């Protein structure tokens, strides 16, 4: 807390401000206007998302963060075209989107590699269903595998790979289609902490080197700050935008930045937004359950 007294998450160094100015000069890739979704449940209509508005510029890295039940997964699935919405508009390069299409690639938390295809054929899949010739698709797949560092595993099947490797293949598979935007739904959520850190660095490396815009969902605050240019903070019941934070941490980023004042200030702000102190209304269902643990051992037999 003492950090926030010296540095605010709103303070940007000159170089960071300059970067944001340049970023905002770029064309808008994704625009979400007044997006809302309601669905019928047993208890009547439920508003999952309400009046979501934001713009994403080309080659921007946006993270979406929010408490459980804020509809961040619903949002990304709507953007991917996998779910319907009730109101508003989703525009990609100014055109409204309809259903899933190759211009919006997606990486899922559960890898979703095709188990019957080798790593190389998984990466070729998107190209082949979009009528790229086999030899051309193979040549491109090799390049993408090179990019994610899995050339040696081209002929392995997914079940022979570790979680981190599977997610690299999934990223390569999505990128091979050369989408305008890459949607990532908690892609590193199932990985252990070490692999996760490696994958974050790797993803930044990829993002830096190719022309791709990334919308990344996570519930990990550190991950969001480490990766994002801007963080879209949602709140729950109904899911709506709470704040769009411009991350003041300079790039290129490394593990060093995790302890920098800008990083800590941003994290403090995110925590205040997502876990408000003594929340009255917007707390999750889990908080209602307060277990009453009875002493069931010898009273003198203490462990701490």
């Amino acid at each position, binding site marked *: 807390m003492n950090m926030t007294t010296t540095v605010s998450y709103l303070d940007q160094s000159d170089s960071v401000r300059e970067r944001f100015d340049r970023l905002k000069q770029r064309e808008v890739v994704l625009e979400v206007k007044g997006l809302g979704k309601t669905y019928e449940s047993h208890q009547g209509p439920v508003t999952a998302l309400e009046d979501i508005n934001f713009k994403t510029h080309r080659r921007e890295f946006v993270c979406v963060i929010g408490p459980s039940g804020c509809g961040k997964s619903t949002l990304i699935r709507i953007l991917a075209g996998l779910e319907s919405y009730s109101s508003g508009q989703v525009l990609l390069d100014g055109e409204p989107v309809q259903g899933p299409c190759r211009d919006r690639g997606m990486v899922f938390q559960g890898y*979703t590699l095709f188990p019957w*295809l080798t790593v190389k054929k998984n990466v070729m899949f998107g190209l082949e269903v979009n009528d790229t010739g086999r030899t051309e698709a193979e040549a491109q797949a090799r390049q993408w595998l090179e990019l994610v560092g899995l050339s040696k595993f081209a002929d392995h099947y997914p079940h022979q790979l570790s979680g981190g490797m599977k997610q690299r293949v999934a990223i390569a598979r999505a990128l091979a289609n050369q989408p305008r935007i890459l949607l990532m739904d908690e892609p590193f959520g199932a990985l252990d902490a070490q692999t996760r850190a490696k994958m974050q660095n790797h993803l930044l490396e990829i993002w830096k080197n190719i022309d791709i815009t990334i919308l990344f969902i996570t519930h990990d605050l550190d991950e969001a700050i480490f990766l994002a240019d801007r963080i879209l903070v949602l709140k729950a019941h109904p899911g709506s935008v709470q704040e769009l934070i411009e991350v003041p941490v300079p790039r290129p980023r490394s593990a060093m930045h995790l302890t920098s004042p800008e990083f800590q200030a941003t994290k403090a702000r995110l925590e205040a937004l997502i876990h408000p102190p003594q929340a009255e209304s917007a707390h999750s269902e889990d908080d209602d359950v307060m277990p009453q643990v009875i002493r069931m051992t010898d009273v003198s037999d203490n462990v701490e």
Partner: protein
Amino acid sequence: MGQTGWFAVRAALTPQRRLMLGIGSFVLPLMLWCAVSYLPFVWHPQVLITQPGDVDYFQVGMRVDKDVFRDESQAMKEAGKALPMGEPANPVYLPAPHEVLKAFYTAFTTPPEQKDAPWLHESLWQSMQVIFWGFVLSSLIGVPLGIVCGTYSAIARLNEPFIEFFRYLPAPAFGALAVAILGIHDGPKIAIIVIGTFFQQVLVISNTTRKLDFALLEAAMTLGTKRWRLISRVVVPGILPDLYRDQRVLLGWAWTYLIVAELIGTSSGITFFITQQARYQHFENVYAAIAMIGIIGLGIDLTLAWLGRRLFPWDRSAGKQ
């Protein structure tokens, strides 16, 4: 805690134990059969007459119940006449293992009782053809329909309620109808196997298709896969190993309909052989023929299982069977 011995819950078996237990599953029932056949004090409810004595209706080689034999012996003893002699025997319908084993060979070498009747190998070949065509015809429609039902809820709803109803109608009930429509030869037999297999097939395969992880379909859609290609490039390859396993099980069902099917119209195939042999009380041939069906069925299944492991190298559940 008990996870290393014979009763370890769901533990993988060592290759030696697998082999040993696999052989044991055949040896144990065989040993039971041997015990009943070769140990005179186990069961043997009859007496095989070796010397009729003075009992006027006894003949050498005749089998009578133990009680009858005892009563007659008693009667002869009281009358002071020659006693009959005999040894404990099982009824004629339970031949000993060695007799059946011998029949495996002699059944092929013995000419049929009737002149123009088929030899055993011809009967077996005919049965296999009936099974083959019944199963192929059923699969030609059943497999695609099952996949489509498992993919599109609307098509499933349009088909499945009727199929659910129809699968409860016993296939043999259509025997007379099939003969009236298709004649008395192989047509109605194939039809019975198709009726018995098809409706189960559609339901089993549509269920298998539904079990395909929906996330894979979503991933394919976000990669730009549309309609027909979604089926040909995701659904079909995705369910292929399970589909293959289903087909193996369904082929087993087709076999169970064979005997009833072959009784329809002119009796044919292995069923014809079995009924003929039973009529002449050659029960060792009957058992041999029944066992042959089992051996052929198991043989085909093992071959298909072996083939499946080569066809689907990515399928990890195959190795666990």
